[in-house]
C-alpha cells in the first residue's frame, strides 16, 4: 500500500494543518472541472486518484488520532465528537472547533498569528466587551482563516461582526 504522506506529496511528521492544506489543494487540482488536469487524466484515472487522496487523508487522520496525543487546551470540555458548531450562529465556537481540528492549542496559534492567547480566547468565546473595534476583529478572524484554512471566510467574518452588539 502506498505511503499516505507520499500520496499527498508530503514529508512525514508535517503538521495536520499542512496535511489538510495539501489534501484540499490536491482535491481541487484533480476535481472534474480543473482546467489544469481535466485533459490529463481519463475519468477512470481521475476517480482512482481522487479515491487514493481520500484514502491517504483518512489514513493520516487515523494515524494522528492514535499515535500523537497532541495536548489540547480545552477550556470547556469539548469532546472530540462534539458536533460542528454552526458558523453562522456561533462563529466563535466554530473558530475554536477549526483550531482544535487542526490540533493547535491557543498557544500554538498565538505563536503563528502573533496575537495573544487571551485575545484568541476572547474571540473564540465571543467576549465582545474585551474585544476592540470591529475593524480590528475582522483582522483577527482573517488571521484564523489564514492559518486554519477555513472555507467561506468572508461569510464567517460577516457572521461574526454581525454578532458584535452595536454600542
Amino acid at each position, binding site marked *: 500500500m502506498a505511503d499516505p504522506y507520499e500520496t499527498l506529496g508530503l514529508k512525514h511528521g508535517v503538521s495536520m494543518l499542512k496535511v489538510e492544506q495539501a489534501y484540499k489543494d490536491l482535491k481541487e*487540482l*484533480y476535481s472534474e472541472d480543473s*482546467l*489544469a488536469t481535466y*485533459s*490529463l487524466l481519463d475519468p477512470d*484515472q481521475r476517480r*482512482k486518484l481522487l479515491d487514493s487522496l481520500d484514502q491517504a487523508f483518512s489514513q493520516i487522520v487515523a494515524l494522528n488520532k492514535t499515535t500523537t496525543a497532541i495536548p489540547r487546551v480545552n477550556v470547556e470540555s469539548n469532546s472530540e465528537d462534539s458536533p460542528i458548531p454552526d458558523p453562522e450562529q456561533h462563529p466563535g465556537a466554530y473558530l475554536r472547533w477549526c483550531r482544535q481540528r487542526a490540533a493547535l492549542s491557543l498557544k500554538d496559534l498565538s505563536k503563528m498569528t502573533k496575537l495573544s492567547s487571551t485575545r484568541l480566547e476572547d474571540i473564540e468565546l465571543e467576549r465582545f466587551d474585551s474585544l476592540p473595534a470591529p475593524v480590528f476583529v475582522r483582522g483577527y478572524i482573517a488571521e484564523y482563516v489564514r492559518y486554519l484554512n477555513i472555507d467561506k471566510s468572508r461569510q464567517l467574518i460577516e457572521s461574526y461582526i454581525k454578532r458584535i452588539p452595536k454600542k
Partner: protein
Amino acid sequence: MEQVQPKQLKPRIWAVGGGKGGVGKSVICTNLGVALAKRGYRCILVDADLGGANLHTMVGIPTPAKSLTELFTKDAGNLSDVQVPTGIHNLSLISGAHALLDIANPKHQLKQKIIRQLLTLDTDIVLLDLSAGSSFNVLDFFLAANEPIAVVVPTPTSVENAYHFLKAAFYRRLKGAIAQEEIGHLVDQTKGQKGALGIRTPRELIRYLVEISPEAGAVIAEKMAALRPKLIVNQIRRKEDIALGIKMSNACRDYFGVEMNLLGGIYNDDKVVLSIQMKKPAIEVYPHSSFAIAIENIIQSLLTNNKEGSRG
C-alpha cells in the same frame, strides 16, 4: 561586445513548443532571441516550423534566399551555410521558409543530421521555434533541447494540446530508453493488467520497472527524470491564470514524475500585436511593455537556473 569563448563549447539549445498553434511560440522564441542578443549572447533562431515558417517576418527581413529547404533538397551542405543575418547584432536566422509540402516531414536520418549539426553551430544559444502538433519531428527537436520550453495559454484547448504534446514527448523518450535497456518484454507483460499492478500513470509504470528490474529501471528512471521541460503561461488576463501554471507543474510531477518548472506568466499585451504588424520584435519597439519585461524575467530565470550555460 567582446566575447571570450572557448571554441569547443557546444551551443545550448532552447526549444519552444507546446502543441497548439497560435499560443505565441514564434513571438516568444523571436523575442527571447532578440533579448539574448542584446545581452551579448550570440544566438541563432531556427525556424523549425517547416511549412509555416515566418520568423523572418517577425525580425523584419524579407524571405531569406537560403533556408533549411536547401539542406533537404540538395541533401548536402551544412546548417551553418544557410544562416542569414537578421540586422540585429549577435542574432542570425536559419529560416524554414520555402519548405515544400513533403519536407515538412523530413526523413528520420535527415532530422538526426540536423539535430547533430545544431550542436556544431558556432554560437552561444540556438533557439528552435517548433511547429504545432505532436509529430515525431517536433518531439525529437523538443527532446534534443537543453531547455525544452512548452507554451500554454489559459484555455482548455491549449492545456489539452499541451498535455498531449508532453505525453507524446514523454513516451517517445521512455520508449527509446526501454528499447535501449532491452526490457521491452517486461513492459509488454504489464499490458492488460495495469490496474492490478497499480499502474495508473507513467510515474507508476517507472516505479514498477524499478521494482522488477532494478538495474535497467534505475537507468530509465534517471533518463526520464532528466527530462525537465519548462512552462510558460502566455496571454494571461487575470492574476489567477498564473496559478494554472503552478497546477500543471504539480500535476506533471504526480503524473509523469517529471519536474516541469514554471518559467513565468506573460500578460496579454496589445503591444505584441502592434509590433508584429510593424514587423519588429516587441522587445525592440516596446522595451518597457509588460511583454518585454516578462521575456527578460524568463531569460533571467533560464540563465540563472542553468549554471553550466555556455557562458559558464
